[in-house]
């Protein structure tokens, strides 16, 4: 009998995320683990270096809360919703403190995660070549990326980017079992490579299911349990972002965040209300329903578009 890795968000963050960690922050605009992000903020983690292909409002909140010193990513913004104001305040005016950023591209970040996942030390790419992304660097200096003559004789130079193997990472999926076998479907975004590259992974999920359910559809497993150190059951754990098959993005809520985060004071007000004054996700859901009503909560629920099953028989 394998040991259960099931624990609360609070326990997982206390146990596995230390000040100064190299932390992979999973999620590409959707299926973002807000449940774990908010817990990291409440526990006032400091000095984090965060890694993400593209970072969104969870990173913005970690920056605003003063948890982050350095970022390696390709994009910091909230897509159609607007800019990441905490990120801009940190870089343009050192509020709450200066944050350094090492800029890559989405593909090069993914190539770095892939290389880390496979134990490949670095990977040659065409992206970044000739651009100022290659010329300018923050703290990594010449180790950000290197230009190398193709040893196989194409005559061209290639950009080598170093593999990433963050100490710990976290992300959100639809379901996992208590050993940490994670299943995700729909758009994968930065998964599976971002999480596979991490030495340890904390996963939050909509549902914990039995090992037998996982075994009914093993192709759906994007991360094997051996990587996972903690499994946190958190329905609605990605809200206000969408989680395929569970709920849609909460546009008014996102718009409200953008509006309030324009100023440091407004941002603090939002965080006091939705992060600092609630102790866990259950309380968050209850607060959401009390504030906006059950109707709006239920309206977020996904429509049914179930897949046809396949025969795994032998």
């Amino acid at each position, binding site marked *: 009998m394998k040991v259960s890795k099931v624990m609360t968000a609070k326990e997982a963050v206390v146990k596995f995320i230390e000040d100064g960690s190299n932390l992979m922050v999973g999620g*590409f*605009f*959707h299926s973002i683990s807000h449940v774990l992000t908010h817990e990291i903020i409440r526990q006032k983690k400091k000095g984090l270096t965060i890694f993400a*292909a593209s970072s969104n409002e969870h990173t913005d909140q970690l920056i605003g809360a003063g948890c982050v010193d350095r970022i390696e*990513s*390709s*994009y*910091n*913004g909230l*897509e*159609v919703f607007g*800019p*990441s104001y905490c*990120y*801009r305040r940190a*870089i*343009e005016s050192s509020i709450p403190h200066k944050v350094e*950023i090492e*800029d*890559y*591209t*989405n*593909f*090069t970040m*993914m*190539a770095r*995660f*892939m290389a880390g996942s496979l134990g490949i030390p670095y990977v040659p*790419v*065409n*992206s*970044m*070549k*000739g*651009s*100022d*992304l290659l010329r*300018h660097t*923050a703290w990594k200096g010449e180790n950000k990326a290197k230009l190398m003559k193709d040893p196989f004789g*194409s005559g*061209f*130079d290639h950009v080598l980017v170093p593999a990433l193997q963050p100490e710990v990472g976290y992300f959100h999926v639809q379901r996992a079992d208590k050993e940490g076998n994670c299943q995700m*479907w*729909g*758009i*994968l*975004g*930065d*998964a*599976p*490579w971002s999480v596979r590259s991490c030495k340890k992974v904390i996963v939050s999920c909509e549902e914990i299911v039995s090992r037998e359910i996982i075994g009914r559809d093993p192709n759906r497993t994007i991360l094997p349990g051996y990587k996972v150190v903690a499994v946190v059951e958190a329905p609605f754990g990605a809200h206000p972002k*969408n*989680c*395929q*098959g569970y709920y*849609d*993005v909460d*546009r008014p809520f996102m718009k409200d965040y953008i509006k309030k985060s324009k100023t440091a004071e407004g941002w603090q007000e939002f965080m006091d209300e939705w992060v600092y004054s609630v102790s866990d996700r259950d309380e968050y859901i209850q607060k959401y329903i009390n504030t906006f009503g059950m109707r709006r909560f239920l309206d977020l629920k*996904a429509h049914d*578009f179930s897949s046809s099953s396949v025969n795994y028989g032998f």
Partner: protein
Amino acid sequence: MKHKYTNFTQQEMMAVAAAREIKDGEIVIIGTGLPLLAAFLAQKTTAPNIITLYESGAYDCKPVRTPSSVVDSVLAPGSAQTASLLEGLGYVHAGDIDVGFLGGAQIDKHGNLNTQVIGDYRAPKVRFPGSGGSNDIGVGCKRTIVMMAHLKQRFPEKVDFITTPGFFNGGKERETYGFVGGGPSVVISNMGLLRFDAETREMYLASYHPGVSIEQIKENTGWDLKVAKDVHETEPPDPEVIRILRDECDPDGLYLKKE
């Protein structure tokens, strides 16, 4: 009833001009906003057999409502593949994708784009989101279509920071890098259509949108913009095309603003 569609906004002109640049059967990587509407419009008019790809990994999507994001859950049901960002941009990096859309804070005379900073890189006056997939699309797609608001500070002679290379300093410089992608083929602004000289790779004005003068465009460009010998007015959109754009591509008014 039809008169309602005879007027059009600058934004709508841009979406229509972009749709005309997509050829039937092509594979097109799109983001949100006007590029998405341009691809949808092309699909519903002149290019029904194009395949849409989103960098998030969604391929050949059949969304039943206008997606508000490249990870909108509506993109998955009915799509031919939902993979990851590594595949979405990997197909681009491999040189398999025909057309990509780009935008940015600044574009220069030779089509180089800046989505990074205004001012000094280490202590910027304004910090933008960064490349995202822009650089990858710019070096990997067979050609790119750039959509920009036409303002002097956004069309400088040289960008503050090259996030996504166009033709560098012009001429054959881009070719020395061995990119699989060919670079920008057109810049669609709210004022006109700009293309690149085949030899010098310098941007020139190919057509001006209805209601805009060549003089206005030159005034809003940060260098002495050359004008094509056969410069002409951009063909105005057909009212039926405007109807499809508004009522079928963006019925909820997610992207199109009323002017």
